[in-house]
């Protein structure tokens, strides 16, 4: 049996719907059509009345989810593309994220964001807004990089009593495969050592973990042993695992597909500098997308985000220091 990252997301939702009568799914085209990416394929048929098409109203979609959560339900919202979540931004960061703090009533909503660039998708179907959501208090932001994590973290997200932004990378949907669904998993909040090494720590998350692993293979041929840390969740951020890795390697490269100003890579570097400065043998580096909207043309798109080659080149530079 071969399962894709997308299958895992679909299966996790089926599992959640089956096990918990409080779960329902709400989003554009998620019903009979099964979602723009088919992440809810057949779920409306299997779970009548619990997988519902929404009007193109991201603000009201999230608002409805918050209201349902107040009544004790556990809504899963699918944003058709992460980019459109900006229309629901107010409800996410001001309504959902503050509800528990204001009222002591928890807000267990999961907002799925199909995010990240794919060639040809252009500036409004490619964004990676994880850092914006992570910036606001009261929100959990997860970025699974494997089929297993896509499954287990989505199930955990639904069970969490706080709003969870679930960033699922569109590039991984059909590209990543696994043999079976996991039976056990690391909890949200724990990073994972995706590859062990002793010369350099590369911290990455979501699709960039795969690129970092490929770069590590390339560098291994040159004799370098690269350790790759998969953050898994960007908020909470598992600083301990990152620092422990830097303690082993003395060098840090942080890779993200998002824009360079601020963001997850800046946060990781800031934490390592303030909490693990003495562990570093070279200045830590960041590698991000270029500071422009995500371009449409494949030539431009491929050069906009960090590539395997760019990661390897950045790593060599640090390793030579």
């Amino acid at each position: 049996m071969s399962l894709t990252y997308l299958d895992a997301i679909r299966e996790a939702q089926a599992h959640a719907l089956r096990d918990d009568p409080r779960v329902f799914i709400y989003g554009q085209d998620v019903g009979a059509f099964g979602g723009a990416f088919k992440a809810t394929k057949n779920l409306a048929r299997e779970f009548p009345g619990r997988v519902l098409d929404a009007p193109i109203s991201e603000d009201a979609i999230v608002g409805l989810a918050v209201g349902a959560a107040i009544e004790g339900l556990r809504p899963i919202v699918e944003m058709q593309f992460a980019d459109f979540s900006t229309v629901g931004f107010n409800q996410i960061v001001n309504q959902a994220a503050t509800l528990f703090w204001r009222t002591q009533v928890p807000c267990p909503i999961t907002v799925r964001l199909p995010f990240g660039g794919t060639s040809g998708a252009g500036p409004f179907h490619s964004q990676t807004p994880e850092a914006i959501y992570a910036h606001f208090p009261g929100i959990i932001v997860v970025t699974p990089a494997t089929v297993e994590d896509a499954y287990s973290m989505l199930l955990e997200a639904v069970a969490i009593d706080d709003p969870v932004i679930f960033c699922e990378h569109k590039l991984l949907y059909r590209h990543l495969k696994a043999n079976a669904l996991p039976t056990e998993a690391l909890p949200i909040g724990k990073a994972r050592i995706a590859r062990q090494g002793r010369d350099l720590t590369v911290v990455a998350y979501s699709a960039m973990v795969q690129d970092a692993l490929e770069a590590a293979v390339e560098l291994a041929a040159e004799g370098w042993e690269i350790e790759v840390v998969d953050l898994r969740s960007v908020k909470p951020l598992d600083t301990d695992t990152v620092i422990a890795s830097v303690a082993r390697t003395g060098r840090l490269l942080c890779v993200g597909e998002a824009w360079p100003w601020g963001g997850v890579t800046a946060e990781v570097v800031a934490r390592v500098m303030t909490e693990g400065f003495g562990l570093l043998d070279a200045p830590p580096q960041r590698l991000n997308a270029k500071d422009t909207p995500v371009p449409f043309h494949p030539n431009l798109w491929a050069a906009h985000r960090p590539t395997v080659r760019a990661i390897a080149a950045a790593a060599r530079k640090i390793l030579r220091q």
Partner: protein
Amino acid sequence: MLQAVTELCSETAEVARESHLAAFRCMLRARLLDDKLAALYRAGKIHGGVFLGRGQEALSAAVGVSLNKTDVFAPLIRDTAGRLAFGEPVLDAVRTYLGSALGPMRGRDGNVHRGTPRTGLLPMISHLGAMVSVVNGMLFARRLNRVTGTVGAACLGDGATSTGAFHEALNQAAVEQLPLILVVANNQYAYSTPTERQFACHDLVDKAAGYGVESHAVDGTDLTECLRTMSLAVGRARAGGGPQLVVAQLLRLCGHAEHDDGAYVDPRLKNSALGRDCLKVAREILLRRQWAEAHQMDEVWREEAVGEIDQAIALVQREPAPDPFAEEWTALSTRHLIEGQE
């Protein structure tokens, strides 16, 4: 037959009398509470803004009186009367305004941003129109949970009808046929912006047709009209008639908040029928119908309300303020996911 009709009429009259009396007493308590809060603000005892419902009490009280305790209510900034009618204790208002650690918001939010979601009373965020879809969600969840017979009311002003949130939520309620009553108090100004700079339709009530929902226009200065309209709209929603848009015409008889003297309000509006004080109008109605005596309204009920309010303020002024050293500085309910904690 004639006797049956007479009995029915007297029964309806009795219901009307009861609802008028209940609404009037909430209007009176709200006016006195608002006045007291304004005085405390001017005395420097209240941190942050104070928002009054002066001129909007009849509509607001009618909303609260028309709802059951098991319904959902999302008041806005001028709904002291509606809140009291829905059952919010005076103490919750005073505690939130004075920042008591014992209040529902524990000093984390203040003034009109208070509520207890589990009792159906939603605490508004400042973004206008944003509470409507939350009410939708509660009604939607109840339908999913097969809870029947409850409705939800959300209050807005004329300004909020310009927001995307208003549009999205009303359309959503219509698509889902939710028992939502959307009550728009057109008080002629959104802060300082007059309605001609807010919308270009003839009347906000005309918007209902575009959403496929039922609509009701009402004179917001007339308690009888407000009660009749709200009772009808709530009844329609409860009976499965889908969302109801109620638009009341009235005038805000104060500034936007207590820092604002409302000098921009057109004196012609103040002198028009819209500028009538709904509390005085309601008092006249009760006198005319001989449902209450002047002595009862002006002295007995007033003194009762003043006593209740003074007692609440005296109590809250002795209550502890929130302590930053005892404060739990986290916005998450999931303890193991709080950064820096295991």
